[in-house]
């Protein structure tokens, strides 16, 4: 599975529609496989970001505030969305892998990102 998190600096971007950077992590057997990829977008925009999510075949999106229409679109595409998340993106991804991330979660930078060792 793939997790896509909207990025602002190292944090989850506060707005889905204004994010210009995303972090994509591939998860294998409950751990991140390889280095998470950072993708720079040509500009902000919910539609383009939704397309990227579909193209990347992400099954989980972690983001800040997202409008209902785009939230429902992604849900309709069978993509789980955990929104209103505040905090560092790697920690949020780690919590998501551990099934501990909830919508509206404020992630404190204490959890270490566990990368699968090859």
């Amino acid at each position, binding site marked *: 599975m793939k997790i896509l998190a909207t990025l602002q600096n190292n944090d989850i971007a*506060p707005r889905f529609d204004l994010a210009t950077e995303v972090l994509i992590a591939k998860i294998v057997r409950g751990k991140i496989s390889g280095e998470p990829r950072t993708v720079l977008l040509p500009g902000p925009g919910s539609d383009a970001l939704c397309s990227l999510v579909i193209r990347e075949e992400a099954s989980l999106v972690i983001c800040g*505030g997202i*409008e209902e229409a785009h939230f429902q679109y992604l849900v309709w595409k069978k993509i789980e969305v955990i929104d*209103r998340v505040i905090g560092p993106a790697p920690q949020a991804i780690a919590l998501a892998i551990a099934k501990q991330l909830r919508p509206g979660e404020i992630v404190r930078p204490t959890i270490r990102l566990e990368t699968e060792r090859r």
Partner: protein
Amino acid sequence: MSENEKINCFSPDLLEVLNGVPHGIALVDRDLRLIMMNRFLEALTGYSGEEACGLYCDYVLHSSFGRNMPVLRQAVESGVACSGEGDIIGLNRKKIPMRFTATPVVEPNNGRQALVLVLEDVTAFQEIDRIKEMGPAKGLLGHSPKMQEIFELLPILAHTDSSVLITGETGTGKDLLAEAVHQASKRSKYPFIKVNCGALPESLLESELFGHMRGAFTGAHADKHGMFQLAQGGTIFLTEIGDLPLPLQVKLLTVLDDREFFPLGSQKKVKVDVRLITGTHRDLRQLVQEGKFREDLFFRLNVLRVHLPSLRERDGDVRLLIDHFLQMFAASFGKKAKRLSAQALRLLGSYAYPGNIRELRNIIEYGVNICRGEVIEVEHLPPYLLAEAGKKPHAKVVPEPFAAGSNTTVGEVIPDNASSWSAIEKKKILTALMQTGGSRAAAAKALGWGRTTLWRKMREYDLG
């Protein structure tokens, strides 16, 4: 200083006061980190003030400003209050337009600078601005103060769901105003249905409004939805509401109160969500006194009342409407007419227009059709105007040159009142046929048409 100390440095009384304000209020430090927020903002964002304390406020607010919220930065740097507009995404994932006002304050106890950030929901204002930007409703024209009042009222009428009663003489644009209110309202994507209450007998009107079931009466071969059902989610405009029969007034009142009714012959109630706009040229209050209109229904309809002024009361609008209709009909009929002569304008300016805008429109339509050149002269206008100008007491000024006689051409007929171009043309054909003893060829020649045109028009007007 710890986050808890930061919260505690504000007195509980102050927090209580801020919690009572119906706007989002946050206190942020110089680095734009949240110190506290009131309950309204907590409800809006879904985060508690305690857990959000110490976080950058743009993360908590999900605002459109980004990390360096310029309004706040400006307030920090300038030391004076600054405001700007943006939006936030709230707990319910709705984008809410907001006015952000940041006011520098000094933190009690430690004397450090902080900012009070007030978030004011401006959804309603933006909606009104949007409606205003749309300009006067399509088809509704006017520069006169009375019409400007109507245009100013329009966004308010559109923004609410209350019943509207539009009064005004015939031809003043009640239908247009009703449609404009609907188009500017949030119901605009749903149907706008107009029903003339004076046009149908009582039994048919009931079926038309509320629908019927198959077999409800002779001839009811199938179920039929009424106009109230067809207007579901939208607006129903009942024009000539003063002509609504008394038994139907009761049913209408029930629908307005309960938002549900039984279609004719049905035992199943139908729920409707429809906004009602009514219109009449009658004095409903007088009808109530005469016992012809239910008082309770009158009060129910008369929630928001708009009176459309007659054309006589609309200073300066006659010229505006003349120009509008002239351009419209000249373009529509492919005619050369570009303007009216000064005399024709004087005549139109002095006329009282009992039929209001509808009458003016028909006069210009007549003139554009009759005129073969670029300038519409007095002789191109309906001749009854001259006669009326000479005798009617309500005419303001009777211009001397036109007071006596008119230059009507052979075969031209004088309409009884402001009738449509079709009626005028029909009369012209009849007059020409009478004058030529029924000879179609001669009549066609007198009218300046080919025989085929005459034949086609006779068929069109059912004169064959």
